[in-house]
């Protein structure tokens, strides 16, 4: 305030009192016209009606952990015993109880891999190797049968590891595939272009559910009898195919935004097609595509819950199964709130991370 560049004859003045401060803020933002004032009042009224009962159920009348279901039902508040009682089943599904450290370590490995991949300093070739090693470790942990681990059939897998494996493995395979599809769609070679466009438009024109049904019901028809591809693998392939088509379109948007001059400069320097794409075009195009890509990532993460319709028990599936225990029937709100929070934590982290990445990539670059 004391450091003032202004050296003219008119001294600095504070802005008029009615344009600053909380009162002014309220007037400018909530009551700046009669219909906004009306909306504000309606919303405040609605919140006043909704929040107290919600808090009451969630906190004030909630049942402490350890209460029996009968007591919970009599009391009426949230029954967190349900969550603590069913926690391991919801998180790990029907994986053998005493072996559940294995899916726990799986979750830790996957989350650790994702976290280190988030840091741009680690975007080096060894990161790819880390992924391969990590996924191998996950496979060994989940299946077992080696190193003294008992064999666990993948029909017993479920809960959070299943959700994470479907989405993380799905996205990490679909992402490179989608780059190829997006480049293919803009290729000079008609055959490659036609194949890419046909693939993308076919997959985008079909709901994910029907793709999953096809993977589980129709796909075996095409295979010779005796050959049987695992149901989980089929679902994983369906997801990859689906995500790749959507992400390819997000990336195409980025590619189209790159000025022609960038391609020409890359060509004129003697870079070949792949060098130009890798060093010049894709880094810029992918940076532009971050918002739509993250959008796809998030919806894809949530869409893994659709595998329930082909009989796989992801997080949502195990929560539903937990509810079918006769002793604990009826605690829907607790179950769905719990997994809702888990989904939200993952999706919100993705969204926050993408904002940070966008900021980092934009820093310094353009005018």
């Amino acid at each position, binding site marked *: 305030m004391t450091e003032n560049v202004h050296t003219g004859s008119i001294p600095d003045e504070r802005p008029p009192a009615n344009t600053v401060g909380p009162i002014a803020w309220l007037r400018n933002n909530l009551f700046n016209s009669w219909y906004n004032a009306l909306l504000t009042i309606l919303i405040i009224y609605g919140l006043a009606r909704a929040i107290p009962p919600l808090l009451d159920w969630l906190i004030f009348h909630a049942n402490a952990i350890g209460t029996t279901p009968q007591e919970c039902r009599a009391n009426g508040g949230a029954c967190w015993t349900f969550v603590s009682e069913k926690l391991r089943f919801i998180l790990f599904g029907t994986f053998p109880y005493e072996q559940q450290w294995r899916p726990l370590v799986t979750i830790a490995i996957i989350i650790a891999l994702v976290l280190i991949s988030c840091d741009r300093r680690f975007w080096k070739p060894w990161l790819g190797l880390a992924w391969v090693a990590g996924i191998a470790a996950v496979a060994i942990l989940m299946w077992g049968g080696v190193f003294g681990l008992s064999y666990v059939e993948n029909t017993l897998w479920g809960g959070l590891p299943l959700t994470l494996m479907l989405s993380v493995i799905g996205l990490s395979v679909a992402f490179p595939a989608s780059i190829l599809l997006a480049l293919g769609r803009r290729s000079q070679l008609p055959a490659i272009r036609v194949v890419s466009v046909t693939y993308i438009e076919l997959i985008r024109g079909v709901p994910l559910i029907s793709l999953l049904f096809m993977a589980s019901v129709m796909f075996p028809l095409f295979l010779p009898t005796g050959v049987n591809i695992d149901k989980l693998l089929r679902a994983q392939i369906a997801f990859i195919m689906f995500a790749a088509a959507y992400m390819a379109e997000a990336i195409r948007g980025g590619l189209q935004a790159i000025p022609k*001059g*960038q391609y020409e400069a890359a060509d004129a320097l003697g870079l070949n097609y792949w060098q130009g794409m890798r*060093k010049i075009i894709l880094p810029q195009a992918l940076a532009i595509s971050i918002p739509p890509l993250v959008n796809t990532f998030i919806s894809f993460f949530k869409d893994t819950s659709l595998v329930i319709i082909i009989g796989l028990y992801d997080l949502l599936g195990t929560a539903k199964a937990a509810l079918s225990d006769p002793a604990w029937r009826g605690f829907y709100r607790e179950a769905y709130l719990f997994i809702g929070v888990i989904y939200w934590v993952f999706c919100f982290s993705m969204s926050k991370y993408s904002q940070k990445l966008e900021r980092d990539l934009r820093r310094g670059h353009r005018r």
Partner: protein
Amino acid sequence: MSMAEAVSTKRTFPAGGEVIRCQDVHKWYGEFHVLRNINLSVQKGERIVICGPSGSGKSTLIRCLNRLEEHQKGNIIVDGIELTGNLKNIELVRREVGMVFQHFNLFPHLTVLENCTLAPIWVRKKPKAEAEELAMKYLKRVRIAEQAHKYPGQLSGGQQQRVAIARSLCMNPKVMLFDEPTSALDPEMVKEVLDVMIGLAEDGMTMLCVTHEMGFAKSVADRVIFMDRGEIVEQNTPNEFFNSPQSDRTKLFLSQILNH
């Protein structure tokens, strides 16, 4: 106006053979006949200025020389290699031919230094340290070394164009093509870019330059080529070209650009 006359008397370096040869080159955009019967021979060390009205095909011609555009008839031979659909040959030609664009086309996601080292590292397979040393040498030469770690978006237009010139020089090209390198610049920045180009010319770089900077043409060019409606109408030494133009189209063009 034979070839022999056209080759300059001003050259301080001996002619070292032919670098570019175009024979009866034609190009069409769809039905539109944009280049017609282009015959051109450029000797090593020659400095050529190409001028002509807007839309006459100047950019198209020099973009054909590194195959950013494809010609449909005739032959173009650059550094002894004929430009055809052969991708390997195209890449070989492009690494010997530098190009500077009207709108700079620097890579905005890379620093100035990275812009300059990219092609030497990936195309010439130079070690990173060597490429950086080379880049700093050329950045010094265009007098912008102190900005090496900035991003292009942080530089002025004139500075960006000088970086673009340094980026091309890092490939040690045998020929440099310039497509109106100063026409997107604010007037006060034109000189700093022209000075760099004059320096290059003095060092004996073979240059083809599309420009309307007639002062540059007079002082630097060995030969001025005038194009109109896709044809080379006239080519001559700057002295002859400006003082006694042969064709009416040239006279009209000169009267327009010198009087405005």
